[in-house]
């Protein structure tokens, strides 16, 4: 659970900070940032993105909060890692600040210094009780670019999805397992570039687009060339009262005047 001061069940008023030996914990403000990962940076990994933001925050001179201890680090956490080579316009991170600043200020200052391909699209100060970006995710939307599927039709998709189960071979580090991915496919649509996918994502259930497209190729009797298919993530979604919304929706404010 992400909360702005201390964990649940920890009432600040119970501690007398005027006593010796206590320092009042600093109040932190958590901002949810939505950003892109474009063509220019699609080959850098999850940890690289994290380091890139740490440095951008330093260059932008934002009042970021640091962890306590001997090796202080910026309090940043990021949502679902993206596969190397996949672009996105719906990446998220939760950034803790030591001061309450305008959410848009973070966006404009970071955008002045971020490398090409990474652009902050949204910045929200979290005021509602909500899970961390990573823990919030329930679904992800993708575009899959494929030349071979240009001629496939909505009818093909319908036939594919009407199978009783969709079995794929999932490889883990140790073994292989046949899994039914059908329940994790929310939607597949035909679009001019290829297909659009809406798949389960997050820590509970997670389905990457590649096994889906591979099994769809197999279903159509097409040869699947792993490296010739491109993926683009449109957004990461969370459930709010049974409805799926973007991760930065309905959790806080975009202006301190709100």
């Amino acid at each position, binding site marked *: 659970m992400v909360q702005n001061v201390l964990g649940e069940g920890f009432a600040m008023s119970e501690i007398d900070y005027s006593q010796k030996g206590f320092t009042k914990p600093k109040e932190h403000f958590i901002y949810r940032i939505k950003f892109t990962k474009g063509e220019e940076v699609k080959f850098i990994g999850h940890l690289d993105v994290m380091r890139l933001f*740490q*440095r951008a925050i*330093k*260059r932008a001179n934002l009042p970021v909060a640091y962890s306590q201890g001997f090796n202080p680090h910026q309090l940043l956490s990021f949502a679902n890692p993206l596969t190397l080579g996949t672009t996105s316009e719906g990446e998220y991170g939760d950034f803790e600040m030591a001061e309450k600043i305008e959410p848009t200020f973070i966006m404009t200052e970071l955008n002045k210094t971020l*490398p090409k391909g990474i652009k902050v699209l949204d910045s929200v100060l979290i005021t509602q009780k909500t899970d961390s970006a990573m823990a919030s995710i329930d679904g992800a939307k993708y575009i899959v670019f494929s030349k071979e599927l240009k001629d496939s039709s909505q009818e093909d998709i319908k036939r594919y999805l009407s199978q009783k189960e969709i079995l794929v071979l999932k490889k883990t580090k140790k073994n292989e397992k046949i899994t039914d991915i059908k329940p994790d496919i929310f939607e597949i649509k035909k679009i001019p570039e290829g297909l659009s996918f809406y798949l389960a994502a997050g820590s509970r259930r997670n389905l990457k687009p590649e096994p889906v497209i591979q099994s769809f190729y197999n279903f159509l009797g097409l040869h699947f060339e792993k*490296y010739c298919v491109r993926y683009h993530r449109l957004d990461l979604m969370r459930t709010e009262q049974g409805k799926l919304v973007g991760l930065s929706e309905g959790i806080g404010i975009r202006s301190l005047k709100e």
Partner: protein
Amino acid sequence: MKNCIPDELLLQVEKPARYTGNEVNMVIKDPEKIDIRFAFCFPDVYEVGMSHLGLQILYYFLNRREDTYCERVFAPWVDLEQKMRENQISLFSIETQQPIKQFDFVGFTLQYEMCYTNVLNMLDLAGIPLFAEQRTENDPLIVCGGSCAYNPEPLAEFVDFFYLGEGEVLYDEILDLYRQNKKEGGTKQQFLEKLLQFDSIYVPKYYDVSYKENGEIASFTPNHKNARKILKKAVVTDMDSVYYPEKQLVPLIDVVHDRVTLELFRGCIRGCRFCQAGFVYRPVREKKVDTLLKQAKELVKTSGHEEISLISLSTSDFTCFPELANGLLEEFAKQEVSLSLPSLRIDAFSLELMEKIQEVRKSSLTFAPEAGTQRLRNVINKNLTEEEILQGCALAFSGGWTRVKLYFMIGLPTETEQDVKGIAELSEKIVEKYYEMPKEKRPRPVQVVASSSCFVPKPFTPFQWDAQNTFDEFLEKAKMVKKQITKKQLKYQYHDVKLSFLEGVVARGDRKIAKVLYRAWQLGCKFDAWNDLFQYDKWMQAFEDTGVDPAFYANRKRNYDEILPWDHISVGVSKQFLMAEREKAAREEVTPNCRQKCSHCGAKCFGGGVCYE
């Protein structure tokens, strides 16, 4: 910018972001509006090249000129190279992703002899003929610089010209000259002739070499009326006014050294007799503390780095070191920027400083005694006594450090069995020093790691005439050290003998080595410094195929009167001084450092630095 390598290939190679650029502070220019295109090539992988300070300096130095676009090029890793060859993709620059064959200059920085096959491989991948005489007006000019360029001969046949010395001094004049020559419709040939006006530019084709029957050089003579008999390295005399970038390229992926690098000074006052850097970078020239603090502030601001590293050959010799260290700590403590201090002498001040910057996390401390006995340390002029080493360790142990790394060399001139065994003995004394502390002050067992590298005699050192140990001698000595060790808290490692042998051949090689390099490259040698890719057998085959005897270069003692392949180059330090130092080494006499007393090495001729303090 569209990547030169298509996505489907990049997806199949390790770390594709090595090839796609877009780093923070990358220079972007329109190549159409540029007169001079310069490919700055680093003959190793991206992560190594991006950690090199010289690249960072020259990149911005050249790009500060409006008429020039300097772009970076790195050696593609073997996986990408294979894809490039399969798909006929030629070597490209990071910035514009364009083939470097169309550039005006292709420049290599030579930091290490064992990267020379990579230089050849990169030229070939670029579609540029390897040998200078095979190239035409349509090919770029190939230039090499860096510390290995002080013995340019092994690469002389491949390179159009060598830049000897520090890049900031002459590149502006060279590029102005190039632009003018191009404007006037001059040829490459004419440009190379014009380069002969410079003291520090070596154009190999204007020199002829002849050899004696025994393989030694008989004569080395200019064949052009303007070619100088002796070339002299270029040095910056005022380190405070010389250009230093306000920015650094900030890589998007993890590289070897990923931090702000602050260059405190160039040169070294010590004069350790085995150390090439200690002679070729003379004289010592420092920056002022104010200059450094200003540069540090600016670099942290523009990079966002979380660490500053102080770079120089011997950091503690910086005259205002405490003032600088405290100034940096004060400035950056609140900004969560840490300090890293390589090559420190261990004394009370440096330990206190490390205590401050490292808080509780105590990494291991490194000492470089280089030799096992005081006698041999005197021979190599390593002014570090056993007492100082043991005292330093005792200080460190009482400060809570429990891990010590020790660097030694085997195969140093005059080395005896006693010296070799001394490596083990000194290391064990350090272990014992730890156990002299009361038990309650010893949280865990001490760990001492002693490692020895194989001594490689280098040009421009007092040992440039010496024979390198043979393969068997090295192995025997390493075994001798190993046998001598009794304590389990002491680990001993030794470096690859084969690679050191080859390094020994190439480092003091002449023009005849070119054909060996070429043959080794043909046989598939590249990335020789990478353990898993080093193919010793192929190198041996290359020597055999070309009829070149490697022992002639590595294991032969030269006479003082022999013409050495690098005798036409002066680094300021005179040959007479090096001979005198070699004689003092034989007598086990030490030479005071530059601040204690001037030993008249010759570096005063540059008109600056410590010689005039």
